[in-house]
């Protein structure tokens, strides 16, 4: 046998675990004993661990592609008839494989720190890598001891049991790796935070090192959540995009604290303030990522995202979480009080805005955590079952999200350190005017005041970001000014403005979706129904055969005032191997609204047959995910800023540890406001 199989994969995983242990212990020891050789060993161990894990993961992929059903994991999740793409992506579509992917991504993050962090001080880098190694050890042990993806089964079955057909979808195939990269990426800021606590020093330079990692992880998490939500919109066929399911909340919680982290790290970097808070956020974000991914697998939280629930596995996870989270928070309780707080600022300032942003984001996070953990905790305390759903989250998150959006537009228009009310109000005038128009438009088209308010605030956020860009570019002050400033405007400024615009676009999408009209109808062939100012006619029902399913397709003609605007083909797929039926939703979008149709059950025979159809008209629906992509693009753009590049050499002279260069000319480095109109 030429290709490596399951045993080689198992061996490589064990090897990676040992290497990770060495990576977790030796550099820390070296840092305590001042042994330079041990410190320099850290990157090498990191790359070795990564290589071993890559081999291990490759072995699992090879087993899956070769249909080696003697591997239990492959037999349970794959089948001969499964298309090749899903044989590969199915590797991480189950518990064992996804844990291995999780470990692999953690190792890749470590490798990235070792590779791009060549400009970092030797001791700090060694400590960061050591902490990543220690976390890796724990999770690779978990993989080896409780969820071995390489276990053999004998006798080997002739064919596998196949994968859940709902997961056989390109959107979902790439959703886990992206989402996991987001989750795991926050391990790097976490490691930086713990290393800083061990060292007892947090300064502006630390903020500058942490931020690109936090932004990278945040971009991936944003994309991952958007992909997951999009998948549930077009695969599940319920017409919804977010169900406040524990697993969805588990991704939203670290996103909220991660967003807070990305913002508070700016304050550390630029103004050397909020240091302790940022360290805590870095720890909290990764802790929530860990708890989310792993609590779901322990079976504590009831969710539609079924992973095999196993209390024994849950206990191991809990122990691991206690070590990682409890350990880091204990360290925080011990060391953080001795960190000195940094720069001071007035409440009305950029920092003040960012503090407000942090408070609101953390309050939102607390609300979501409460809503998610309340049912199991109530059940254990009082023995009563209850469920917390959309009404609770609507009632609690909207009142927090509205002021957050209000602050978003004002914050970007404020200068650092101290702002003044009058210039701020003058700058906000165009945004306020547009938001007012939005409010009127919203009141005219939406039912209820809250959607109209949401729309107004979304427009306010977008307009505020555009105003910020316009002011920085000196628009309206002559062509010469624009020509002079355009090439020098830092990409970070573009990035943050674009990310804020993305957030506004998403909120507009959410608002539009809240106005969606839907109806469940029963139609015979040739019959039509009037829904959302359109006529929907069922013209035919056809049968088709797919690679591993039988499909029933409907031909649905949509017309407005007798003029045909779309022919849609919603279908139902019967996966014979799994006895599962999935709906294949038909969506026709013009970017301003989605026509959405799903085919349900059919009753009766022959000409009397009637077919259940679910018809939606979803205004602005694509904007929800479009906004997510724009946010991630904004983050990526700010990453490409030269000053944030991981390996960027420090400026000679200026930014030593513990000090920050306060450029008096502001705009040159994009940190301050343009001098006019601001007394600074």
């Amino acid at each position, binding site marked *: 046998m030429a290709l490596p199989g399951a045993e080689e994969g198992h061996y490589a995983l064990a090897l990676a675990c040992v290497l990770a242990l060495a990576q977790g212990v030796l550099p820390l020891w070296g840092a305590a004993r001042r042994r330079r050789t041990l410190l320099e060993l850290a990157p090498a161990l990191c790359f070795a661990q990564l290589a071993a894990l890559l081999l291990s993961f490759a072995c699992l992929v090879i087993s899956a592609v070769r249909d080696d059903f003697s591997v239990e994991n492959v037999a349970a999740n794959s089948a001969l008839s499964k298309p090749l793409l899903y044989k590969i992506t199915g590797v991480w579509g189950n518990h064992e494989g996804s844990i291995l992917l999780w470990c692999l991504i953690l190792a890749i993050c470590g490798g990235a720190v070792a590779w791009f962090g060549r400009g970092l001080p030797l001791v700090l880098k060694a400590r960061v890598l050591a902490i990543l190694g220690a976390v890796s050890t724990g999770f690779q042990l978990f993989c080896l001891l409780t969820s071995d993806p390489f276990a053999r089964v004998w006798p080997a079955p002739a064919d596998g049991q196949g994968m859940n057909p709902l997961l056989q979808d390109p959107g979902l195939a790439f959703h886990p790796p992206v989402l996991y990269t987001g989750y795991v990426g926050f391990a790097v800021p976490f490691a930086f935070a713990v290393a800083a606590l061990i060292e007892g020093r947090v300064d502006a330079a630390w903020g500058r090192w942490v931020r690109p990692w936090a932004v990278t992880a945040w971009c991936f998490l944003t994309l991952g959540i958007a992909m997951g939500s999009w998948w549930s919109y077009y695969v599940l066929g319920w017409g919804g995009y977010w169900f406040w399911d524990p697993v969805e909340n588990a991704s939203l919680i670290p996103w909220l604290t991660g967003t807070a982290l990305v913002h508070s790290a700016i304050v550390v970097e630029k103004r050397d303030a909020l240091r302790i808070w940022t360290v805590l956020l870095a720890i909290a974000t990764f802790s929530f990522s860990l708890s989310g991914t792993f609590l779901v697998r322990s079976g504590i939280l009831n969710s539609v995202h079924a992973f095999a629930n196993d209390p024994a596995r849950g206990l191991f996870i809990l122990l691991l979480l206690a070590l990682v989270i409890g350990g880091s928070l204990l360290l925080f309780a011990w060391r953080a*009080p001795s960190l000195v707080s940094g720069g001071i600022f007035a409440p009305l300032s950029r920092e003040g805005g960012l503090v407000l942003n942090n408070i609101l984001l953390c309050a939102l996070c607390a609300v979501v955590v409460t809503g998610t953990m309340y049912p199991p905790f109530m059940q254990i305390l009082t023995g009563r079952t209850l469920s917390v759903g959309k009404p609770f989250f609507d009632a609690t998150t909207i009142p927090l999200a509205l002021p957050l959006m209000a602050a978003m537009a004002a914050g970007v228009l404020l200068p650092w350190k101290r702002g003044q009310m009058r210039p701020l109000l003058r700058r906000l005038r165009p945004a306020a005017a547009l938001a007012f128009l939005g409010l009127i438009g919203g009141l005219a088209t939406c039912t209820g005041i809250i959607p109209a308010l949401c729309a107004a605030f979304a427009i306010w956020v977008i307009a505020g970001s555009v105003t910020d860009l316009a002011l920085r570019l000196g628009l309206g002050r002559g062509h010469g000014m624009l020509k002079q400033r355009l090439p020098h405007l830092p990409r970070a400024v573009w990035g943050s403005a674009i990310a804020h615009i993305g957030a506004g676009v998403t909120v507009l999408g959410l608002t539009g979706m809240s106005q969606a009209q839907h109806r469940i109808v029963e139609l015979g062939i040739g019959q039509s129904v009037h829904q959302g100012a359109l006529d929907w006619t069922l013209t035919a029902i056809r049968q088709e055969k797919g690679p591993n399913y039988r499909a029933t397709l409907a031909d649905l003609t949509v017309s407005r005032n007798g003029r045909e605007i779309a022919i849609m083909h919603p279908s139902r797929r019967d996966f014979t191997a799994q006895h599962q039926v999935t709906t294949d939703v038909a969506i026709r979008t013009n970017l301003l609204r989605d026509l959405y149709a799903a085919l349900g059950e059919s009753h009766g025979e022959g000409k009397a047959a009637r077919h259940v159809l679910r018809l939606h008209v979803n205004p602005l629906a694509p904007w929800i995910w479009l906004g997510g992509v724009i946010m991630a693009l904004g983050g990526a753009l700010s990453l490409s800023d030269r000053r944030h590049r991981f390996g960027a050499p420090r400026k000679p002279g200026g930014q030593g540890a513990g000090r920050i260069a306060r450029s008096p000319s502001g705009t040159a480095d994009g940190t301050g406001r343009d001098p006019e109109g601001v007394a600074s």
Partner: protein
Amino acid sequence: MTIPSRRRLLMALPVAGAGALGLGCWKILSSMEEGGFDPRAIRTEAMRHPLPDFSLGGLPGAGEGFDTRTLSRTGEPVLVNFFASWCIPCVAEMDALRKIARFLPIWGIAYKDRPEDARRFVLRDGSPYRRIGLDPDGMTAIEWGVTGVPESFLVLPGGHIAWHASAALDARQFEEKVLPLTREAK
């Protein structure tokens, strides 16, 4: 430099909070192992309520059907079990059901199943069911609040649901949870 104790206390808050959460999770996990906590247990309020209205046709050759009236007029407790031939946990549950059938009559409801599939499934190793109703479109299951198969309900004489499990039954669960309730009813 001395650090004020208020500051120390403040910084210890996160670890205290995480500790409390962790303790709660540990308690949930350990009671899950003992079977005292079921994250999927839903709608316990539906218990001790009158039976929903339904009427199911039987499965010829395997058992006759039943409706609300027949079920509420039995003189003894009945275990109502929703199953389907396409459901893997139901296969695993069959052994336990055959043992339970010696102590307690079990009435089955075939959920979204074709009659011939259901018949083959039930008769393969001996049917544990005294009666079998067919619920091809799953409407009765909705009335009962079933979220998936297998699911079991203990119905006491007079038509009250006294106990409900939204997972496969095993012998231990039956002895600890169901048997005491049936003795009480007798």
